[in-house]
């Protein structure tokens, strides 16, 4: 069973629906027992970093997530589920986050501009190409040039470049996916990104949590 962490974030059901469609049994849950026994964990999220951290702590899911990562359970973070893995986020007046990955989450600059000098819209909403810079089982078989659905005003900046698995351009080049050991996380929404996104989800659901080149 795949546990979808229920930390009262928005849009949990769209991940569930995508997994059901792909034929992988899953459950939205905050039960320690169920999460401990899950083969894999998905840490989704739509919402603000501050509220997400508050809910995670109140439900004891911050500790549990750390434990499962230590234990080697494959974990997939999506959107806010990626952002709160870092040390802190600029959102909600500087939110202290989980600190599982070194680095921070910044807001897109107010004067963010395209190469042609046009002011860019914030949030970054819509389809954008992700260039996968790491050979990783979860991104295997995704056609080159594939675009994914993004909706966010904050972006991650890992302190360790070796974590970067994918990059995207929007006024600047930012880190759109990270991977380390049994953890993989992405800023875009694979559950809303059509066939390439479904490919990533099904890869994750078959992944054993290891990959060549992991430390």
């Amino acid at each position, binding site marked *: 069973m795949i546990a979808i962490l229920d930390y009262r974030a928005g849009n949990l059901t769209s991940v569930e629906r995508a997994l059901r469609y792909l034929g992988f049994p899953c459950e939205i849950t905050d039960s320690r027992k169920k999460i401990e026994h899950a083969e894999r964990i998905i840490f989704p999220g739509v919402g603000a970093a501050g509220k997400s951290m508050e809910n995670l702590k109140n439900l004891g899911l911050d500790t549990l997530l750390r434990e499962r990562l230590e234990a080697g359970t494959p974990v997939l973070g999506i959107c806010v589920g990626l952002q709160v893995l870092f040390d802190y986020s600029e959102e909600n007046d500087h939110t202290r986050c989980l600190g599982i990955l070194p680095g921070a989450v910044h807001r897109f600059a107010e004067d963010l501009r*395209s190469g042609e000098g046009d002011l860019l819209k914030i949030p*970054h909403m819509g*389809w*954008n190409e992700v260039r996968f810079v790491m050979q990783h089982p979860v991104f295997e078989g995704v056609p080159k040039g594939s675009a994914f659905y*993004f*909706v966010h005003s904050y972006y991650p900046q890992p302190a360790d470049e070796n974590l970067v698995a994918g990059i995207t351009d929007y006024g600047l080049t930012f880190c759109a996916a990270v991977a380390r050991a049994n953890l993989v996380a992405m800023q875009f929404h694979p559950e809303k*990104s059509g066939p390439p996104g479904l490919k990533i989800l099904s890869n994750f659901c078959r992944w054993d949590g290891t990959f060549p080149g992991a430390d």
Partner: protein
Amino acid sequence: MLSKRIIPCLDVRDGRTTKGIKFKGNIDIGDPVEMGRFYYEEGADEIVFYDITASSDRRPIMLDVVRRVAETIFIPFSVGGGIRSVEDMRDVLLAGAEKVSVNSAAVLNPDVIRQGAEAFGSQCVVLGMDVKKVPSSEKIPSGYEMVINGGRTAMGIDALWWAREAERLGAGEICLNSIDADGTKEGYEIKLTRLISSQVRIPVIASGGAGSPDHLLDVLREGRADAALIASMVHYGTYTIRQIKEFLEDRGIEVRKTW
């Protein structure tokens, strides 16, 4: 770079689409779920379902459509039409829509935008605007006025002011429909789209008037729209989404090409 989005819009009444003929294959042309799936496979970047069901006691039919759509397509889709309250929004989002569009109800009660954004996040809240060109006046300095009831009721509200106000209240996106251009197939209202899109920071979807790929090119380039809504030009099989995207790509517009 971020792609310009091409968004087919399906009008749904009592659980059935009101347009849609001349499809190839075995598609039930009246079923919004099948049509949604068809456009998903055709490369739509998003889909809008617009509920024009007249009587409110038939609304559960639409929610059932939304639930079935959510099980079959894995791109964002929004639902509009008859959304009056945060409760209406919640119903649609829980049924599986990514976004919900408020139109008349927001003009009559702007606070519904703020409430929706607070409850579900701005990214879920699309402001639908029906706009009519009028002579510039003290009350309507931009020369574009908000209208409701399909254009029959003028509200005395300046469209540019309203777009900015809605952004301030927490709308995450604007779907901008020109009542003058709607249904003409003679092109989008470029000037209006450019005006609104350059004065707000949230994405603007242009709507009303699409008849050919040229029209999309104009509104995405000159009109600075972030996305373009299309209806009859694809519903009647005149163009495919791929044809439209290839046309745009050849002219330097960034579009999503692989799916």
